[in-house]
């Protein structure tokens, strides 16, 4: 492997890893904030205990999300310096704004929330967790604005003198319709993770407590189950609606990516949605598929009879415009990651419906299989998120900045031209280092999460805040 492959592999490994922890933070933070709000409004201590329980899991998770985010920012310069030179004028701005507007808020108010339990007035302490939740969402927006620029460059022009992309309108960049669609999709996708996480753990506990005949505790957990499931259902609808919008945009903005997602080799009128394919996807059209007629055409345009361009025709168009080269993403990856994303997302939502059915009208299910299934469901939305990003980033290849067919001309860059000039051994060293460190941390993270989840709700009672002037010791959170 050369430096390019290694750098790409590192970006894939570190980004997928980073985005295991981030959606849980984005999805769980507002749920913890809601729990604390309900406690604050009703004085019901069960919600206090739940805030404490899920809050602890949030913190274990948050730590790893923060530190792996640092790698994301640094590796653009370290491994992708030529990309950074080309787009820095445009791409750096949303990153810097994210730090100033969102990340400062997130980390500062999280510190206040962790250490402020017995110190801050309750309403201010509550405001801190809401500030954290809002900041994680703002953070997602700016990062997606940066990413959407790579998918669909707007608000920029190519300066032939400097040979780089230059920002023309920050407003256009921040209101890129790709961003506007990706943002709800990502946030709802994260809420799917957070909701399933809460519902999964709470269901396990509800069943356990019901089996032991502890109905009071089982009912407490049942409320958390319902909060989680409600979040999953809202998120499920949100993901589907925003995903549909995204797909429609993507057919216009990145036709090759969508054709690759559908393994649509030849230009076709009214193509169907391929559910399953066997055969050699790599060799493009030599496959047998099961398709639902007209669905892909309808997804793309709203008209089931519309004609969509296939991979071969698009390849010819790209060759004519950008010179000889292979402009087709790796089809098995785009095809399957797209389906796995949808499949795991739909599975999460379906399980939520089943969960609501099983707990309808005050029921407290005691079935052992339900407890097990609830825990097994937790990875599903994580996988949906992971496959979604693998699809969107692998489907962008061979470009790092995809040419915009509907607008800006001249702003594009091949991934191969974006890599730093560092020797392969250096990148390999970095890749191995991060893989080892990240792997070790994942093991510890999982063990900690599992053991803390197995602790159950704390018996703690809320303490009165000590107030500012009292001569009392501070809480020691560490």
């Amino acid at each position: 492997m050369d430096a390019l492959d290694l750098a790409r592999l590192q970006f894939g490994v570190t980004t997928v890893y980073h985005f295991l922890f981030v959606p849980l933070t984005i999805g769980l933070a507002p749920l913890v904030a809601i729990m604390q709000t309900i406690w604050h409004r009703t004085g019901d201590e069960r919600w206090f205990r739940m805030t404490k329980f899920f809050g602890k899991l949030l913190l274990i998770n948050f730590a790893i999300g923060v530190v792996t985010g640092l790698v994301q920012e640094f590796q653009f310069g370290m491994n992708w310096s030529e990309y950074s030179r080309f787009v820095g004028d445009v791409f750096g701005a949303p990153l810097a704004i994210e730090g100033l507007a969102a990340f400062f808020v997130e980390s500062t108010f999280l510190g206040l929330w962790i250490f402020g339990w017995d110190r801050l007035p309750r309403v201010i302490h509550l405001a801190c967790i809401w500030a954290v939740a809002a900041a994680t969402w703002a953070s997602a927006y700016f990062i997606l604005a940066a990413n959407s620029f790579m998918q669909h460059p707007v608000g920029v022009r190519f300066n032939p003198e400097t040979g780089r992309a230059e920002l023309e309108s920050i407003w256009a960049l921040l209101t890129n319709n790709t961003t506007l669609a990706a943002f709800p999709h990502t946030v709802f996708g994260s809420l799917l993770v957070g909701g399933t996480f809460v519902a999964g753990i709470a269901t396990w506990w509800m069943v356990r407590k019901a089996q032991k005949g502890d109905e009071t505790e089982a009912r407490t957990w049942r409320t958390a189950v319902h909060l989680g499931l409600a979040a999953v259902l809202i998120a499920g609808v949100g993901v589907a609606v925003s995903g549909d919008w995204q797909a429609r945009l993507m057919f216009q903005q990145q036709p090759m990516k969508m054709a690759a997602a559908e393994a649509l080799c030849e230009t076709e009128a009214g193509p169907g949605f391929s559910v399953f394919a066997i055969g050699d996807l790599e060799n493009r059209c030599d496959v047998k598929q099961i398709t639902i007629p007209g669905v892909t055409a309808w997804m793309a345009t709203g008209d089931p009879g519309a004609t969509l361009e296939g991979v071969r025709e698009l390849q010819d168009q790209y060759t004519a415009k950008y010179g000889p080269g292979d402009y087709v993403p790796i089809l098995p990856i785009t095809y399957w990651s797209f389906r796995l994303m949808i499949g795991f997302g739909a599975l999460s939502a379906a399980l939520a419906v089943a969960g609501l059915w099983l707990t309808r009208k005050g029921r407290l299910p005691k079935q052992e299989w339900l407890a097990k299934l609830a825990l097994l469901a937790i990875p599903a939305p994580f996988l949906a998120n992971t496959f979604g990003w693998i699809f969107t980033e692998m489907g962008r290849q061979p470009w790092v900045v995809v040419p915009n067919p509907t607008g800006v001309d001249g702003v594009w860059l091949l991934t191969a031209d974006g890599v730093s000039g560092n020797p392969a051994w250096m990148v390999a060293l970095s890749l191995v280092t991060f893989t080892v460190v990240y792997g070790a941390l994942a093991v510890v993270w999982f063990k900690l999460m599992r053991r803390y989840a197995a602790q159950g709700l704390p018996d703690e009672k809320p303490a009165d805040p000590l107030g500012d002037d009292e001569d009392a010791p501070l809480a020691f959170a560490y």
Partner: protein
Amino acid sequence: MDLPVVWFLLIALLWTGYLVLEGFDFGVGMLLPVLDRDRDGRHDDRRRRLLINSIGPVWDGNEVWLIVAGGATFAAFPEWYATLFSGFYLPLLLILVALILRGVAFEWRGKVDDPRWRARADAAIIIGSYVPALLWGVAFANIVRGVAIDENKQFTGTLFDLLNPYALLGGLTTVTLFALHGAVFLALKTAGEVREDAGRLAERLAVPTLVVAGAFAVWTQLAHGKAWTWIPVAVAALSLVAVVGATRRRFEGRAFALTTVTIVAAVVLIFGALFPNVMPSTTDPAFSLTIDNASSTPYTLKVMTWVAVGLTPFVLLYQGWTYWVFRKRLTVEAIGPNAGLKPVVRQR
């Protein structure tokens, strides 16, 4: 004022914020194995927890200054960001790993009540504080000194070029300065025995820091300085001399203010010596990256100026508020029992 100049100053400001704030929490991390000893010389976990909790609510917010400094460099000086980050590859890799392990160690240390678990977390905190404290000094010294950069703005040196005597002195300077800054912070932030011990340690560190940092400042000035940068050299030197007096007389607030002034003066010296270059080339001065040939377009700089001017005051406000909320001195007596889970006992 010219926008690239404004951004040169803003980047210097962000680095100042980072080095002043994370400087003391690196210092606390480095001093962990020294200041956790009780009067009998034994390592005391309660003291160790006290030290870690002294920076608990703030270390993460402090580290964001680095993220913003990095992001702002990317946005305002893409060529600088690209050359610096791809050129200083291995030191940055080490810094990243150190910061990763240190960050999770803070958050996870108290989660399991097991001496071996804590020992591993402490090793991560201590090493994770030394490594970046050293390497930031090495990196900034190399930036001022200049590195091999070709006509295409590419770094052509090797790792060993970065480990020259001047840069190593720079690294030693940041290590000693941050250790002193951390000791002074702890004397200000704790009560009881730890406060006394931190005060005594600060007193002992003050003179060596003055010698090392003074030597580095004078070397920087003689080799790379301008006439006016004698001012930050003098400010840094005088404030460190005053720190010696302040730590002797246990003027804790004043000592912390003075180490802060020293770090600010050091950043002013470094950036003052650098200006108008951002990364001088030792290959040929014509290949140097300057505020003009490395910067973004005027439009981007203008947008970013508005963003920075609009948001930075709020950041200072709420971060300042955090320090106010947690302003009380911490004592060992107030530390509760370890709340972590008991270690898993393996069944045979």
